[in-house]
């Protein structure tokens, strides 16, 4: 019975492609999420997702697909956001907020002005069931780039994240590390636009990481658990949405929220039992 529930959905090709996308996006976002929550960069990540809209609008107008536009849009947005945040004196949250809303508004205006055919609901909440073969290649490539970057620069990124002044004194290129992380985060965010959409990408980025932090004692363990939670939430959300005929992106988000609730209860009962 259980095996049927789990296996049945994957007799269709589009569901297998959705499964691959769900696993890779879940793993990518939840890995980056561990750094994001500890560096209080959730709002920055949310802004990255929203700020891609005008680039997507212009790109689609010129005949590119959303997946093809993802990486270049991510890099442009990351560098732009990083530069503005560093060089304005109005505060990080305020400058992110201004860019976030301005770009999002500009995106909608461009979609209207250029008469671009974009299904806004799919873009905002994701449409993982429409993922095609070339999307899978792009999602897989972005997964490898993001995870590879984190593995290669892990110790430098951790040092910079914990002690930015000490890292600079030690001779680490902190400017490079700052932009490297922003670009990696932005790539992770746009890789999931088709899976969970602009609005819900934040949930898959921060909720598995936050859940993992509640029930682990070390940063390394929190990364491992976060990846597991990210993949479980994505895949379970996909399966549930298939059986109950629900939208997939929101289903994934709600599974992640449920995992968070269980982790919270578990962490509270641990404290109580001490």
């Amino acid at each position: 019975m259980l095996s049927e529930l789990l296996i049945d959905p994957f007799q269709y090709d589009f569901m297998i492609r959705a499964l691959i996308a769900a696993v890779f996006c879940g793993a990518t976002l939840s890995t980056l999420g561990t750094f994001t929550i500890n560096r209080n960069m959730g709002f920055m990540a949310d802004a990255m997702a929203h700020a891609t809209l005008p680039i997507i609008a212009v790109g689609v107008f010129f005949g590119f697909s959303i997946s093809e536009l993802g990486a270049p849009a991510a890099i442009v947005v990351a560098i732009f956001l990083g530069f503005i945040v560093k060089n304005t004196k109005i505060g990080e949250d305020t400058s992110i907020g201004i860019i976030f809303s301005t770009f999002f508004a500009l995106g909608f205006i461009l979609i209207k002005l250029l008469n671009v055919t974009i299904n806004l609901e799919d873009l905002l909440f994701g449409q993982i069931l429409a993922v095609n073969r070339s999307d899978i290649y792009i999602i897989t490539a972005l997964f490898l780039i993001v995870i590879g970057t984190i593995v290669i620069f892990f110790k430098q990124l951790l040092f910079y994240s914990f002690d930015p002044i000490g890292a600079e004194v030690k001779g680490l290129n902190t400017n490079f590390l700052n932009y490297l992380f922003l670009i990696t985060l932005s790539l992770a965010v746009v890789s999931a636009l088709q899976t969970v959409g602009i609005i819900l990408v934040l949930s898959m980025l921060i909720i598995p990481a936050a859940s993992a932090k509640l029930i682990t004692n070390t940063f390394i363990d929190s990364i491992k658990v976060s990846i597991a939670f990210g993949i479980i939430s994505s895949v379970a959300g996909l399966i549930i949405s298939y059986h109950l005929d629900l939208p997939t992106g929101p289903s994934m988000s709600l599974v992640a929220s449920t995992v968070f609730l269980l982790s919270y209860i578990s962490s509270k009962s641990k404290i109580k039992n001490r």
Partner: protein
Amino acid sequence: MTTKENIYESEWLIVSDGCCVQYGEALAIDDVTFSITKGKKIAVVGPNGGGKSTLFKALAGLIPLSSGSLKIDGLDPLKAKGMISYIPQKDSLNWNFQLSVKQVVEMGLTDKSTLLSFNQKKNAEMINESLDQVGILDKSEENINNLSGGQQQRVLLAKALIQDSIILLLDEAFSAIDVGAQEDIMKIINGSDLKEKTILVATHDINNLEDKFDEVLCLNRHCCAFGDPLEVLTEEVIEEMYGSHENMFLDHKPGSHGS
């Protein structure tokens, strides 16, 4: 007292000659002149905003001088980065990360060539040695957030010591830790293991400095005094350091220190 005539003699490790740093239009430190020989333990005292952290950041090559010169063993701070370990104020660290003590100490071995490095064994011996020096080897696996303020400061000291630099800068090392923990850290600083190191400690505690430090640098945007604590910490210097003297700086500009 250091004079401009004798600061370039060769035994000096750190030489500051009319050092000025400004943030925008504001002068953070102005015309600071002093020199420090190798192995000395120096207290840097002064009010909040007096320029202690700014001086440390200039020494560490993090901020440029607007005028004057600063030399570390004859080199500009930017070229002397390997010679300095810097322990920043605790509130500039990101305590959200759940890191183990040994992970934090290992950061002292991390540099820009550290890529794909998961070889824990190679570093383990050095980490243990460093933790042993500060007396918390038994805490190596603990989460740094679960330690007391004094123990956290010792971990940061171990992270600095593992770098094997000749100069250590401790910015507000004693803030929010109790007297006993302060004493423990001073014992480590003045211990035989660190005899060769030149150590500057920014502190607000000006009591009994002569028992703990060789020299004291009194900063309130300019150098109020520098030398043996017993000799230079006079009532006038303390008044100059902590009293209000805004008018003194009205006609000060970078490179021009008033009439």
